[in-house]
């Protein structure tokens, strides 16, 4: 079955103004059924106002074996962190 039925990643926008967040994956024959399945699987309790489904095979992911070189930058480069700025109140959350 899983050989024939493609896997889809589901992204849900919880409220207007927020961005779509990945919330899981599911099997479906095509994008229309994937959207229906996502609705039934992930939005029954009012979790969202919009759904995206993306074929899992369209996602090119980073290699866990390269985690160190990808995600562990040197801690001595403080200038990379924007902690020297005073952010005006009006900007709100950045």
């Amino acid at each position, binding site marked *: 079955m899983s050989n024939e039925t493609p896997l889809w990643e589901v992204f849900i926008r919880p409220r207007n103004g927020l961005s779509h967040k990945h919330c899981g994956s599911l099997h*479906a024959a095509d994008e229309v059924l994937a959207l229906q*399945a996502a609705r*039934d699987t992930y939005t029954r309790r009012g979790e969202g106002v919009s759904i995206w489904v993306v074929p899992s095979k369209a996602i090119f992911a980073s290699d866990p074996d390269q985690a160190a070189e990808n995600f562990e930058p040197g801690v001595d480069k403080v200038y990379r962190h924007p902690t020297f700025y005073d952010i005006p109140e009006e900007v709100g959350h950045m």
Partner: protein
Amino acid sequence: MSAPLFNALLELADDHLILGHRVSEWCGHAPLLEEDLAMPNMALDMIGAARSLYTYAGELEGEGRDEDQLAYLRYDRDYKNCLLVERPNEDFAHTMLKQLYFAAFMHPYWEAALHSSDETVRGIAGKSVKEVAYHIRHAGEWVVRLGDGTEESAQRMQAAVEALHPYVEEQFHMSSDAQAAADTDALPDREAMRTQWTNTVSNVFDQAKLTMPEVEYPQLGGRTGHHGEEMGHLLSDLQYMQRAYPNMSW
């Protein structure tokens, strides 16, 4: 005065309870996990509508019968559901087609019921009309994929059409109670749903490459309690708990 409306509400409630039960039979047996969630979802929509309708019918009757007594403690001849909803699930083609036929009827029905003279009916309609719109989409998409799918799925889909089409006509029939409820604008006229039903189903059939059969002798009798053999088996499942443990509650 309210007796015709009581009976007409029971017809509607029984349709929803029995089809809801049929769909719930797939719970744990669906061909894929996603569908195993979707089907109980739809079943719960229908059973939810049945609960509201039974509760309101019980209030109108005024003899202290609640939703459980109306749903679980009547005999088979007292159920007024149309025959379509009690038909066995068979395969996915039958199940989804049955759902499409029922939802294609209920959607315009609930839309019309939004303008009912009865406030409770308007409330139930407001909730149900959204749910049933989704049922049309869900079942419709499956009918398209099976009808326009593989050789086997197409053949099974057309077999389901031949098997279930004789039960369509009864949906539009008006019992004297339904007519009385329509005369006071409490519930819509079933006959008036024909055009929209045909539009909805034809649209799906066109995409699914299915042909709509001509039915010379429609199957009737559900509204007067003349049910098929399968109804007894369904009820023995449905009523088991309440019969075995009278007055039990969760």
